């Protein structure tokens, strides 16, 4: 069983409270009408299947019912980090030990949230 840290509940919970929801950070093409069939097909159907570090979306289904991102190693099952929607990962395939501090500041811009939602 995995012990997963929910970034909204701010504590570790049992795996059975969560569902995996596939690859994270997929952005919908801004103008679907301008897409080629190949681009649209890639967006809809094609997913990465890396060996090693992978960014996934999970939902805390029995809990706060929020979606969040998980950086997971597909070889060792190790969960390197969990972070809320809208944020960027610290661990990537390029930086398996975590991004250096100067890179981090550029990448981690505060996402705009609805007023007062996040305390």
């Amino acid at each position, binding site marked *: 069983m995995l012990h997963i840290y929910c970034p*909204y*509940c*701010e*504590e570790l*919970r*049992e795996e*059975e*409270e969560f569902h995996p929801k596939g690859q994270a950070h997929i952005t919908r093409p801004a103008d679907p009408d301008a897409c080629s069939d190949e681009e649209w097909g890639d967006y809809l159907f094609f997913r990465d299947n890396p060996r090693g570090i992978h960014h996934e979306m999970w939902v805390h289904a*029995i*809990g*706060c*019912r*929020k979606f969040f991102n998980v950086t997971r190693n597909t070889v060792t099952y190790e969960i390197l980090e969990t972070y809320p929607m809208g944020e960027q990962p610290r661990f990537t395939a390029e930086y398996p030990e975590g991004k250096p501090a100067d890179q981090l500041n550029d990448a981690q811009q505060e996402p705009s949230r*609805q*007023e*007062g*939602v*996040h*305390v």
Partner: protein
Amino acid sequence: MSEHTSATTATGINMYDVRPTTEVPAESPLAWSYHHTGHPGVSQRSRVVIRERAMLGHVVLRGGAIVLDEAVRQVLGFGLPARPNTLNQDPSGERSAQWLSPDEWLVIVPGGEEFSLEAKLREALGDAHYAIVNVSGGQTLLELEGEAATELLMKSTPYDVHPAGFPVGKGVTTVFAKSNLILRRPAEDRWELVLRRSFADYLYRWLLDAGQEYAIGVDD
């Protein structure tokens, strides 16, 4: 519909009292279970006691924490819990507000108060962006008391209910007996389970079965 059962707020939202005072009898989701499964009495040997607090007013609030907190403070006299998995209560313990998710709270008040609470909250919130849903008919609340209550919970949920990890004033939504519910601890020796009505019979029978070794009793 009579005058006191529906109201239109300043913002033009129609509200209906889902349980107006009429001659129609209302029953808790567990009424059939008491009849069908029975309810073992409380005896000297009972180390756990279940008590249902039926027909309370359950209201779910969604929206921005700051505006909702102000409105709840104004109407109920205490604020929403700001930290995840926590519970706020008034001094009598009859009214409570619990964190469910970053933009969602469960407010429980004595039965019959939920309609006026909703009206007052809508008035206080004005045209803020929010949602209030009266879910009183959808769930019920069970109290668990006694020295073996923690042991019974340990058999039922993977969540850590040891007093060190689950202090008074904490409340979580978690897995319970292959189902799910809201588990909370409003007082040192008392636990509360907020059940969905569709799971109520199953969970009631689970609790009786799990509590058999502690001579569980149902207080009514």
